[in-house]
């Protein structure tokens, strides 16, 4: 299949970017979206033009490195998928595809489609952990955890930290990410002792990074490659209110 691509090119964070049009010819429907970009890049290098920079690593949908807005949708049209797991069979011959980086103030563009998501790491550093040291822990079976709780925690823990939720949100809110990360630990008995501190500190860090507010429109859930549920946002709001109350 043959495609027309409009791709965001930006030299670095200080230089304004622009869309540039490229042709992608003889694309196989079995290629992944990133393999299609590989082919485009090989062609660019052959012509002496600088290839398009984009982040990627595992290419199997788990590392959370890749991510681009494809025709206005974070990670593209398929739903419940990362960009690397999106295959060209979901596009039509002759189609035009617009490709942009995540656009959110807390995620400044580094180059082309590459953005800086270190704000997420700082939110985790503010409290997204259980303060246990290595060693001296009780036997893994010392405390049974009801299966539904373990499963729900796992649903939240499945978040890959790709940032699609932020990119899709008109307010650039990180609520789905932060809620997933906080809930993963807050649901488990091991996470209970630090539950209040955790949610207060993570939300504070989220605000300090400049992420916007949540108006529960659900765009985040719609693009989340791991289908993290909006319910976790409600849960975090509840945990947050309780923590505020208890702090008083």
């Amino acid at each position, binding site marked *: 299949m043959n495609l027309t691509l409009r791709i965001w090119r930006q030299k670095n964070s200080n230089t304004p970017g622009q869309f540039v049009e490229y042709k992608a010819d003889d694309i196989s429907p*079995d290629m992944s979206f990133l393999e299609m970009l590989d082919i485009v890049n090989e062609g660019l290098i052959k012509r002496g033009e600088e290839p398009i920079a984009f982040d990627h690593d595992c290419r199997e949908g788990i590392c959370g490195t890749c991510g681009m807005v494809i025709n206005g949708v974070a990670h593209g049209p398929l739903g419940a998928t990362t960009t690397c797991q999106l295959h060209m069979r979901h596009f039509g011959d002759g189609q035009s595809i617009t490709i942009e980086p995540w656009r959110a103030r807390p995620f400044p563009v580094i180059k082309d489609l590459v953005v800086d998501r270190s704000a997420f*790491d700082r939110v985790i550093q503010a409290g997204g952990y259980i303060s246990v040291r290595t060693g001296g822990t009780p036997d893994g079976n010392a405390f049974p955890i009801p299966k539904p709780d373990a499963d729900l925690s796992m649903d939240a823990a499945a978040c890959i930290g790709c940032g699609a939720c932020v990119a899709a949100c008109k307010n650039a809110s990180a609520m789905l990410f932060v809620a997933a990360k906080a809930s993963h630990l807050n649901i488990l008995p091991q996470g209970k002792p630090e539950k209040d501190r955790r949610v207060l500190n993570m939300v504070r860090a989220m605000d300090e990074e400049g992420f916007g507010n949540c108006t529960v429109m659900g765009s985040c859930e719609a693009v989340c490659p791991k289908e993290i549920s909006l319910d976790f946002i409600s849960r975090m709001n509840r945990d947050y209110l309780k923590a505020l109350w208890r702090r008083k």
Partner: protein
Amino acid sequence: MGEVRDSTMRLDAKIPSGPLAEKWSRHRNHIKLINPANKRKFDVIVVGSGLAGGSASATLSELGYKVKCFCFQDSPRRAHSIAAQGGINAAKNYQNDGDSVYRLFYDTIKGGDFRAREANVYRLAEVSVNIIDQCVAQGVPFAREYSGYLANRSFGGAQVSRTFYARGQTGQQLLLGAYQALAKQIEAGGVRMYPRAEMLDLVMIDGNAKGIVVRDLVTGEISSHAADAVVLATGGYGNVFFLSTNAKGCNVTAIWRAYKRGALLANPCYTQIHPTCIPVSGDHQSKLTLMSESLRNDGRVWVPRNKGDHRAPGEIPKEERDYFLERKYPAYGNLAPRDISSRAAKEVCDEGRGVGPGGRGVYLDFADAIERLGLNMIRERYGNLFEMYERITGEDAYKAPMRIYPASHYTMGGLWVDYNLMSNVPGLYVIGEANFSDHGANRLGASALMQGLADGYFILPYTIGDYFATGRPAKPSLDHPEFKKVEEEIARRTNKFLSIKGHRTVTEFHRELGKLMWDKCGMARNEAGLKEALERIPALRQEFWEDVNVLGDGNELNQSLEYSGRVADFMEFAELLVLDALTRDESCGAHFREDHQTPDGEAMRDDENFSYVAAWEYQGLDTRPILHKEPLVYEEVHLAQRSYK
């Protein structure tokens, strides 16, 4: 290159004395400790932030050491450990099915085809139980029974159920546990994290590892970092085959640079080919995707009995199918170890009975399991894997069998380390997949996660103190001229890449190298093919340095430049891998020499001549490296032909 020069130098693995089961506890009781107040006087550099590097950084920092951790990814949470699906082994015997530390130890030694160091493996099995406790305390959401207790599954090469898992994302969850522990220490000021930073060289001062030189991948800035010890946790080199299940960024650079500075590289020819990957779909293929081996618990592997049978799988009656793993290995069936299953798949495809495009594939069929357990149970166990399969192939594996084919997955070889996980270079430690120590010639499923976390949480944090306490190494200083010298070498290399302006892209060279390695030094190897590869690799390398085209500048984010450096190192490393494969004139585990097989096609070891670790010492690119042999002495187990029949 001339003849192999065997060294007479004896490699001292520093294995503690005493009975096998007591070695580690005795050692821990005798190694020197550092006073808590003095620990903060020691700087430790950790390169890599996967299970090994992340857990080591967090733990060393908790103990009080000043840690700098480097990773090339944009966040330490993205290291390739994240992609491990199936699980982590531990000798908990929660299932009451006869498991024990000894049995896990024995299975690992046997799985490694008796080419691993006994004492290291026993210790690994011993600390495996602590890992599970640690991870549960960190909040890793392992799968549980309705009772609330931890669930297990079985894995290849074992007859007990000892694998702990978190759906099909065990690596992700364990890595997040280590990452969170690391985040806690970053917040506390104990670890300084350098994401998007790639180690380009090791700095040696007076024969000791004293620091590294790093490129900031965003600004291109080259900087030096000094430390009292350097820990490499930089993973494996499976991408030497171009197509592998490794993440695209995985590379050999850190360990190769260390090798060129004097560290010994051991057993590079032990490369594992994983049997259950999604087959190649065309020339555009950029990487291969693994389907967790846990699928073999319920999936049955087969091909048509007759050559050239192109009917759809559902139209082939049972009696015209060949369930070749069940037929050849009745005791283990579809759970035969990885190397054996991979070769069996290759064999039936070579016979012309392979399925799918190009005939390079075999079926992994769940129809019987769905009938036995119901669709919901299968969905519960493997739902995400079935989804992943559908996403990539466009096929629904609940309705038709999956197609799978072996792919490069894990590398057992790596830098040589002693029992303390220190290389022969004082102050240079190597942990996780980057070292060679625990898996022998073949790794069992669900053991990579175990080793990474064992090294990082429970072994290195003890052993590194002994080096600081006994070695009393001189304080490192960035003023030493060696740092400047290495920085200048790197700058020259960068300029060289950018100035060649040839005709071929880095990817084209990498693809060509990978194909050569896969054809001549992949799942099956022979003397003629290896010799041919040894001639072709230097020629390809020369062509690379004359004709590669790397655009852009050194002082910005430049992915082609990053990639060119990694491929340049693969071009050198590949030759050592092949040399090792040629020198090891026997078959063992994943290293299968066609010239050494039993009449029924199994690997034929030569214990008399090859029961050693091959540790290579660099002598310059055009000189054959020196081979040092560490004899493998078995006090506890009896060497036997590995049989899974």
